[in-house]
């Protein structure tokens, strides 16, 4: 029972630790706890895969955005670039 208490994690804590893991900041116990939790919990495993999916793609957000500066704004910027 003692061992169980030591390695048991709630889903809230497990999802929290997933981010910490990315940064390599888990203690030995935490990393063991998380590994075991993910082995038995489908929901947190999904959370882990899905968050990885969109965080990994978020740096490409601007490549899919057609935002453009107005010609007036461009002209205004251009006019600043003079001696």
């Amino acid at each position, binding site marked *: 029972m003692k061992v169980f208490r030591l390695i048991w994690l*709630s*889903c*809230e*804590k497990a*999802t*929290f630790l997933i*981010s*910490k893991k990315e*940064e390599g*900041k888990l203690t030995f116990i935490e990393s063991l706890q998380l590994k075991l939790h993910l082995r038995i919990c489908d*929901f*947190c495993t*999904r*959370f882990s*895969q*899905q*968050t990885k*999916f*969109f*965080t*990994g*793609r*978020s*740096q*490409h*957000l*601007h*490549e*899919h*955005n*057609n*935002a*453009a*500066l107005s010609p007036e*704004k*461009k002209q*205004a*910027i*251009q006019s*600043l*670039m003079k001696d």
Partner: protein
Amino acid sequence: MAFNPDQWVNKYADALYAYTVVRVTDVQQAEDIVQNTFFSAWKARDTYKGQASEKNWLYAILKNKIVDHFRKQSTSRITLATGEEELYFDEGGHWKEESKPKEWGSNMEQPVEAKEFYSILEQCKQKLKDIQQQVFVMKYMEDIEADEICKYLGITPSNYWVLIHRAKLHLRKCLEKNWIGIE
């Protein structure tokens, strides 16, 4: 290597602006940041040594301006409201029934409608609180390390982890609802 300040606005203004607006969200502030970037670059044009392409050089200046913008926006004493996690977890820390992550299935394999995915991701990101957006952008869009982010924003590591956790919980739920289409 080509270095033509006269052509910068023509060649890079829209790309720099798109890069900025998805990160800082506010249109006016994004315009100002792009303008400041060109102006700083132009003033520093004599220091350009050609180690980087002119495009990468401009992006480096822009990225600094974006982080600087977040730094200026951050109020040093952040008190986090409690209870956002309660939307997803019960008192025991278990997923609430309605919040359990659903299967995303084939959507996770190379999205067919990439454009749709990215536009929904952007909308979901905009719904986050400012400070959550800032840590999300710095960590996942600018690839800055947690320690650095804490320094820039004047927040403690423990607050940082809470903010990242909440940002992910909200974004995941929002994407599941609006992109996957499961309420």
